């Protein structure tokens, strides 16, 4: 937990960021060895340097992994989601064998049992629509109907509890019978508001909810020590303090689906924009809360539907960017560091995202199919950046090809610091030789 100092409101943005980074970097962890402690301090220092656009001791190497650690560890994804001992063996082995500069966390995989109990409808996962060795995948749909905008805008939490969640969590279907908590404004309303809580299907929904909570407690009790072992044993800092999303993606991924939101851009643009604006403070609070409770300033934001090709630049500037920018400014204001993962191409968006309202040295941008020399030209001296090593190369390339790709990338864009070596898109598949080649090449050619 990051404890907010008393003079917080008097601090500058830089001082707030510094306070959060230092708290994370100096975390009182019981390391397994002096080497592990030294490694942790060195890695957090490298990250601090690149965030603040300085030259670190060497380029930090922080690939972004999906479910490849399962395959590497000889288990299926299904086993990783349900058998936490196997999950732990695989993820600890992955971290120990490859030693990247950031923890590969086991926390993003499960808990399968809770998903079963809750009857999650908007995802497929192994045993529930996808094969045992495949990652979980989103089932897009209009879980929020086109005419639900007003309800969402008036009270997003109420909308989530009584409309959205009953649609996507089968076991929570009866929650649609609940009354809004905001009805409880005088004593008699306690009784009246809670009448639905006595209805048998609602009672059953809450019983299942508690069972899921139990399953989640079993999972996190296992996952905490798994990640903890890699942090304390190897000195790998966690590079995800919290999650949040761009409001356009919350609506486009989670609520309306791609088709729905793209039609809304034409059919009801004002409502769409109002809804995104409504989600801004919620997205900021989610990121800041996670960063504070986890004592880690990095707020991970996967960006989806603003990539090149999804919409025109004009629409990007009208629909995608303004509320994303507002979230970034809110996160920066709180001293956290947004860590943006821009999959796909962002070549057409670079001029827009280099926005003069966003202060230099407060954001990390990771790219995929984006021209990194252009990125360097436009983001250099303004934001830390990285990414781009192709997933295709990691799967079908040779270690020699990967070494020369990484060397070239570092030669091209890393010379002034403010740079992280990473792959471009979530990697679910690769070969061990290629993973070694990428990480070793980064460590070899990335020394300043």
């Amino acid at each position: 937990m990051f404890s907010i100092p008393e003079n917080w409101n008097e601090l500058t943005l830089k001082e707030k960021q510094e306070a959060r980074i230092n708290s994370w970097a100096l975390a009182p962890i019981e390391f397994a060895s002096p080497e592990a402690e030294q490694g942790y301090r060195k890695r957090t220092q490298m990250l601090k340097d690149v965030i603040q656009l300085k030259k670190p001791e060497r380029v930090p190497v922080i690939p972004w992994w999906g479910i490849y650690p399962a395959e590497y560890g000889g288990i299926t994804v299904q086993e990783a989601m349900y058998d936490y001992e196997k999950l732990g063996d695989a993820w600890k082995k992955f971290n120990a064998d490859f030693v990247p500069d950031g923890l590969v966390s086991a926390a993003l995989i499960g808990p399968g049992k809770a998903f079963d109990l809750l009857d999650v409808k908007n995802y497929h996962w192994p045993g529930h629509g996808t094969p045992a060795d495949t990652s979980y995948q989103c089932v897009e749909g209009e879980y929020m109907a086109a005419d639900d905008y007003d309800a969402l805008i008036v009270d997003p939490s109420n909308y989530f509890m009584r409309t959205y969640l009953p649609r996507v969590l089968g076991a929570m279907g009866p929650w649609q019978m609940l009354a809004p908590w905001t009805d409880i404004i005088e004593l008699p309303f306690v009784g009246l508001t809670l009448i639905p809580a006595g209805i048998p299907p609602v009672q059953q929904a809450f019983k299942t909810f508690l069972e899921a909570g139990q399953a989640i407690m079993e999972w996190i009790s296992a996952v905490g020590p798994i990640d903890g072992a890699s942090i304390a044993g190897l000195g790998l800092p966690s590079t995800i303090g919290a999650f949040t999303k761009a409001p356009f993606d919350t609506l486009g991924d989670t609520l309306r689906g791609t088709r729905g939101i793209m039609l809304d851009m034409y059919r009801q643009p004002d409502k769409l924009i109002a809804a995104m604006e409504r989600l801004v403070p919620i997205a900021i609070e989610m990121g800041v809360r996670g960063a504070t409770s986890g004592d880690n300033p990095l707020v991970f934001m996967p960006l989806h539907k603003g990539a090149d090709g999804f919409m025109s630049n004009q629409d990007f500037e009208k629909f995608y960017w303004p509320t994303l920018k507002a979230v970034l400014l809110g996160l920066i204001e709180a001293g956290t560091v947004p860590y943006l993962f821009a999959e796909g191409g962002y070549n057409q968006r670079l001029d827009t995202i280099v926005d003069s309202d966003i202060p230099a040295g407060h954001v990390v941008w990771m790219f995929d199919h984006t021209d990194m020399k252009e990125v360097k030209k436009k983001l250099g001296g303004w934001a830390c950046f990285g990414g781009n090593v192709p997933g295709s190369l990691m799967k079908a390339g040779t270690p020699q090809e990967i070494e020369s790709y990484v060397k070239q990338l570092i030669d091209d864009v890393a010379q002034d610091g403010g740079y992280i070596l990473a792959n471009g898109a979530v990697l679910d598949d690769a070969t061990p030789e290629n993973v070694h080649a990428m990480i070793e090449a980064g460590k070899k050619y990335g020394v300043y």
Partner: protein
Amino acid sequence: MSQQLVDAITGMREEDALKITKELLEGGTSPFDILGACSTAMDVIGGRFEKGEAFIPELILAGEVLTQISDMLKPVMDDGEGQAAEKLGKIVIGTVEGDIHDIAKDIVAFMLEINGFDVTDLGVDVPPAKFVEATKETGATIVGLSGFLTLAYDPMKETVAALKGAGLDDVKVMIGGGQVDEQIRAYTGADAYGRDAMAAVTLAKQWIGG
């Protein structure tokens, strides 16, 4: 042909397009002329997409307008009367086994269709055997494999092998998706890959000689 209707569709004015269609029908315009206007409009939008002037929202909205206009025309069209437009060739398309992403695949199918191909869309999570079966059944000469995840690489490779193993060596296979490039084309043994929907159309036209 109604230029007004073409302009409404290409101008993304959905309500106007539907209103004009209604007026045209009431005024006795032949449903085939209306369909002709729709087809012209789709060519314009396809051309803009090709040039990077139209994007996914425009394709989705235009598709939606087209569906609504077709629904309005159905009651006034005799089933047998429809002049089956000459198709350039048959294509089977789908997202490979284990991957359920459909947005990009749907756009490719849509662009192929408006460019005159007869497209059989097998949906998502399609096993190799189903591609083989559908290719044989339809007599398609082109198969399109889509995949978003890096996990799609191996199923693509297996599907290419299954097609060849079933004696469909002459069938051309194109692959595409977020993380697909020349390296993955070589890895899977596909004939070509495409970065976007227009690349799929260009490839299909080359292969079919259209």
